[in-house]
């Protein structure tokens, strides 16, 4: 409770006491009105003032004005207790609402309490504590046990366990030592680290994550825009309804003026759309905040909402379903030694940075003399062609061999095969394997259980290679032998397969599939920790590379969607009920106010549940967790 809240509370108490007194003291006529004017003034003066000011600005459908009109109307028809009750309950409601919003805000800020407050910089005169904003690239900073890494950088000295939970939701600490990259937001959970800063504070991961979450407000969910449009019409329509209700029955059906005026005032009281308008963005933001706690960044309410309708999920194979770490597992020379074949391949691939090339160079292990290689040419989707010591070497897949008229041997299995030919003569092949991630199959099964209609794998690999992996993982369809631009075409084909309401999700690593990520309805990039490309290109970003986070994201989005629907139904339902009872003459004004503000508070409380949708408790902030763990801050 803050100062403003306390002041409001005093007014409410004094107002209630005076109201009780006015109800108990038997007075007649003008005296009675005067007695009720006292609590009315105490509770309603601010509201009346605000209303007057807003009229000057031409804001007719302002809630202060509506409440003022309703209560003044009640005074005019001598329903004094009603008039006071309207103001009193309105104030109670506003207070409760403000309190609930404040509480939800605090939960969210505890959730996003990952911004480092200071950095310890190493200088000629020893260590000094500075604002992280004042650290330049190249500065050396020191992070002790219990402290947060303030900026992204590289460890130059020391070794420590770091807790990445605030960023990834992963609770197992990671060990880092000299040469390793560390990301701002990691917490040193034991050890001493000297870090060379690689990025300014503004470009460091922790700041970019916070900005992404804050900016998510700009991308409104469809429901949210619909509700704000609806709210714009709702109030005027209800107010016009109130006017008709006050005037028509007495004029044409010989109703009693004061009776129908009273019923009309009830309409005025519930014409404020606040419960609706407040609960929808709050729910979405709660869901986005809760997701960020699990290491899932969602860039807007629109994506969170769309994810609930996911129908087809397409996965990039390498680095997404598999670990993306290739290893040479077989060397099959046609004639000559294995070492010779490996040397040819390594030189051929020496200019390429493809993961497959890297694995061959790694297996070769020797220094490569770049002067021996000329005319290096990478043929997209096929392989490479170079001239080495005057001979033309081809290294790549079967298509490359076919294209150059080389007869090659088909090999079995689900692995990538690099064929090598020298001056058109086949020299053999090298088999490279990529391991499937441990949790891939389980994650796909879980997505199926959650009702995803179809899972698809996109890969540049040969058809039989792709199909084998897909069947191991339980994936429904495979688009194989895709060139890099083929992924976008495949995504477009899949977009046509979704039903009108269903959404296509594309999951990739964001490194070479940015176009596919942005073309799909929802692009999810994984393993984004420290990767700017992924953070930029995707709509939803998974900080680590665990596929099971997709299920978590799906659960969060569905739960949030459910909460939004509940809130809309509840708010509209209550308002409709009060209107009907009001027209029939069964509702009193104070009951209407009570229903209206009650619904607001209920809706806010319900929206706050979205914070926990991911199953991660937010009740305890990181700070508290660390205090509990005995770290000094």
């Amino acid at each position, binding site marked *: 409770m803050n100062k403003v809240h306390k002041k409001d509370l005093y007014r409410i108490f004094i107002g209630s006491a005076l109201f009780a007194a006015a109800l108990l003291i038997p007075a007649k006529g003008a005296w009675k009105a005067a007695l009720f004017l006292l609590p009315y003034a105490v509770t309603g003066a601010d509201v009346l003032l605000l209303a007057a*000011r807003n009229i000057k*600005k031409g804001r007719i459908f302002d809630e202060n004005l509506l409440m003022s009109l309703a209560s003044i109307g009640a005074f005019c028809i001598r329903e004094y207790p009603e008039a006071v009750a309207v103001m009193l309950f309105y104030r109670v409601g506003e207070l409760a*609402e*403000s309190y609930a*919003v404040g509480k*939800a*805000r605090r939960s*969210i*800020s505890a959730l*996003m309490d990952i911004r480092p407050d200071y950095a310890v910089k190493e200088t000629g005169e020893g260590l000094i504590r500075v604002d992280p904003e004042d650290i330049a690239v190249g500065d050396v900073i020191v992070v002790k046990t219990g402290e947060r890494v303030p900026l992204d950088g590289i460890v130059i000295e020391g070794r420590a366990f770091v807790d990445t939970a605030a960023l990834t939701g992963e609770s197992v600490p990671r060990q880092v030592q000299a040469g390793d990259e560390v990301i701002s937001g990691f917490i040193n959970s034991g050890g001493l680290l000297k870090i060379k800063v690689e990025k300014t504070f503004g470009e460091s991961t922790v700041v970019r994550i916070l*900005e992404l*979450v*804050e*900016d*998510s*407000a*700009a991308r409104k969910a469809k429901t949210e825009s619909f509700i*704000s449009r609806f*709210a714009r019409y709702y109030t005027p329509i209800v107010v016009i309804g109130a006017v008709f209700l006050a005037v028509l029955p007495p004029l044409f059906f010989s109703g009693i003026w004061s009776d129908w005026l009273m019923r009309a005032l009830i309409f005025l009281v519930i014409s404020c*759309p*606040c419960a609706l*308008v*407040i609960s929808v*963005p*709050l729910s979405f*933001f*709660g869901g986005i*905040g809760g997701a960020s706690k699990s290491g899932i960044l969602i860039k807007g309410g629109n994506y969170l909402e769309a994810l609930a309708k996911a129908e087809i999920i397409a996965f990039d194979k390498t680095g997404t379903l598999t670990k993306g770490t290739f290893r040479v597992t077989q060397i099959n020379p046609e004639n000559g030694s294995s070492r010779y074949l490996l040397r040819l391949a390594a030189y051929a691939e020496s200019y390429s940075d493809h993961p497959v090339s890297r694995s061959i160079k790694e297996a070769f292990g020797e220094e490569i003399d770049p002067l021996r290689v000329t005319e290096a040419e990478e043929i997209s989707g096929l392989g490479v062609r170079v001239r080495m010591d005057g001979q033309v070497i081809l290294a790549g897949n079967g298509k490359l061999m076919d294209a150059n008229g080389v007869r090659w041997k088909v090999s079995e299995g689900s692995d990538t095969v690099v064929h090598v030919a020298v001056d058109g003569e086949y020299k053999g092949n090298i088999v490279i394997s990529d391991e499937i991630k441990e949790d891939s199959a389980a994650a796909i099964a879980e997505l199926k259980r959650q009702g995803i209609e179809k899972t698809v794998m996109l890969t540049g690999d040969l058809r039989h290679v792709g199909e084998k992996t897909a069947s191991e993982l339980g994936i429904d369809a495979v688009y194989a032998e895709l060139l890099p631009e083929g992924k976008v075409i495949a995504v477009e084909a899949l977009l046509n397969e979704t039903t009108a309401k269903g959404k296509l999700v594309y999951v990739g690593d964001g490194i070479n599939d940015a176009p596919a990520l942005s073309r799909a309805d929802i692009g999810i990039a994984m393993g984004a920790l420290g990767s700017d490309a992924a953070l930029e290109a995707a709509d939803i970003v998974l900080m680590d590379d665990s596929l099971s986070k997709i299920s978590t994201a799906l659960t969060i989005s569905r739960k949030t969607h459910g909460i939004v629907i509940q809130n809309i139904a509840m708010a509209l339902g209550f308002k409709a009920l009060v209107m009907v009872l009001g027209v029939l003459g069964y509702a009193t004004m104070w009951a209407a106010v009570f229903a209206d503000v009650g619904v607001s508070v209920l809706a806010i409380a319900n929206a706050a549940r979205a914070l926990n949708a991911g199953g991660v408790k937010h009740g305890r902030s990181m700070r508290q967790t660390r205090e509990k763990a005995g770290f000094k801050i």
Partner: protein
Amino acid sequence: MKKRYVLTGIDCASCAEKLENAIKKIDGVRDAAINFMTQKLIIEAGEERFDRVLDKVASVVRRVEPGCTLIL
């Protein structure tokens, strides 16, 4: 250029929405968003006129929602 400011005292979501729309209409503002939950105002405007635009934003905040404070 995109900048973020703290906006305190914004208590109702429909007020935030009204204010957001009013700021969006300011000449020179390319886009604006108010994050009701984190109490942040995000303004996108041309770099060369940013200060002038910001002055206008501050005056719009004062006019539309006198209870709000834009912390610069």
